[in-house]
């Protein structure tokens, strides 16, 4: 069973948790007495981790974890919320399952979002895992179609939300997950929001009509928007000694270690493609396209786009 503790618990800004212990109900009698009857005795937990302004690199780490574990339980040693289960039943009982994964990127290119985990009783002991197996699959379908890229050149969204459409089915005991069946077909989902002038909006509207809503498919960049073009740059230190070519301008290290660098002397002019421009085959999720026209001739619209497997 995979241990996701270090990545999941890094970089979050807060955890919202709810714990249910001894699940059952109280029954009132005419005498005024009540009888408390419980059915499940293991603490059932749900925790929502909030991440604020994390970088692309950290977002992709979390996204990778979700895609690799969306339909299986995994270990998270949640000492931060005082999970009682490891103390009572051993470390192998601190297992969880993904319930929700939602992020969004705004124009500043930093990522905000939440991950909700729910406790599982599919403990990491052979006796629990031997009878039933679990696994997660995700097979993204790439596309070379550039129609959407062309659209984004003229009509960039101001916000992109990231989500998933999952086919997995969960079994539960009380409030905890028992185990999960991966039925395949995990799909990425984007919600793009635009605020556009009329000529830009007409391009978006035309694109929707050309792709016939849910019918057509096209390639959408993994991020859902086109990052600003950036170049390979040469970094020099205080003594103008060459250090290295730096191609990961938007990754976190450069900003964090900014003080170490003195000069950025030249850009080679080469557009860097380190996976940011890889495209996923997708289509519109809805057969309607809603938009608002404001009195100042600006248009507000949004579209749900889902991966087409």
């Amino acid at each position, binding site marked *: 069973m995979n241990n996701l503790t270090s990545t999941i618990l890094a970089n979050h800004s807060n955890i919202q948790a709810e714990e249910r212990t*001894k699940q*059952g109900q109280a029954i009132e009698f005419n005498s005024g*007495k*009540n*009888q*408390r*009857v*419980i*059915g*499940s*005795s*293991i*603490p059932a937990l749900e925790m929502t981790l909030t991440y604020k302004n994390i970088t692309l690199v950290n977002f992709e780490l979390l996204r990778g974890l979700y895609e690799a574990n969306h339909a299986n339980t995994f270990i998270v040693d949640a000492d931060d919320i005082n999970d*009682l289960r490891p*103390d*009572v*039943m*051993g470390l*192998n*009982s601190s297992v969880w399952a993904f319930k929700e994964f939602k992020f969004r990127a705004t124009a500043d290119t930093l990522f905000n979002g939440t991950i909700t985990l729910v406790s599982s*009783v599919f*403990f990491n*002991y*052979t*006796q*629990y895992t031997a*009878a*039933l*197996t679990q696994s997660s699959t995700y097979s993204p379908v790439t596309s070379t179609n550039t129609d959407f890229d062309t659209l984004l050149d003229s009509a960039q969204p101001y916000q992109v939300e990231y989500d998933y459409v999952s086919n997995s*089915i*969960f*079994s*539960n*005991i*009380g409030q*905890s997950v*028992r*185990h*999960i*069946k991966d*039925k395949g077909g995990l799909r990425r989902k984007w919600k793009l929001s635009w605020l556009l002038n009329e000529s830009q909006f007409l391009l978006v509207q035309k694109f929707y009509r050309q792709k016939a809503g849910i019918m057509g498919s096209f390639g959408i960049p993994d991020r859902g928007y086109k990052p600003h073009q950036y170049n390979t740059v040469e970094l020099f230190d205080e003594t103008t000694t060459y250090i290295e070519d730096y191609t990961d301008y938007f990754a976190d290290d450069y900003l964090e270690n900014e003080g170490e660098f003195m000069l950025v002397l030249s850009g080679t002019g080469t557009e860097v493609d380190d996976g940011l421009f890889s495209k996923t085959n997708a289509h519109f999720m809805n057969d309607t396209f809603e938009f608002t026209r404001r009195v100042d001739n600006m248009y507000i619209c949004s579209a749900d786009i889902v991966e087409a497997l």
Partner: protein
Amino acid sequence: MSKTITNDVRGDDTFAILHLFEFDMFTLANVFDETLRFTDHDIFVNDGTNEFTPLAISFDKLVEDFSMSSDSISVSIDNINGALTTKALASEWRNNRCKITRVIYTPASETIGSDVYEFGVTDNSSTTYPRLEIASLTKDSYVLFEGVIDTFSATSQALQGTLTTQFTHWGKPHPSRTYNQNEFTTIIDAMTDVVYWGRPTDPNI
């Protein structure tokens, strides 16, 4: 079956309930295969002899009445991953024994570190994996239902089974049949005619 219910914990204001399910499985050649044992508790339950696997399993209300008619009860068992469907199709459930036992107990206290919890999580002295050993607990344990498995149907989410009491053998001497009214000119004809599997007794008709 015994319906004797002791009063070990039922007088308490607080108690825990779990159910133990047993289903006998025979091979298609009618040779006893195994007994499947499940519990609706959230960890393994051991009654001193057998281990019951925690699984999402529930049943609807059991109704008994004076008429001695065949009472039935529906159970819904987690079938995610299709393991039970595979088992059901490779074995014979129908007409084999099933039993639902209700266990009412007061969870024993548990000490974790230096803290004492009045109602503990497990009562486990002999295994490293989490399980509840009920043999030595103060409890009421009685058979809630005992009968045979009648029919089942399955989806990828759950396996639904119908269990009937053993009286079902009294109430079903013949396969039941629905008459087609077209075979008779009047209702009275249908009521009075003697038919055998849809064919009139007179072969000349």
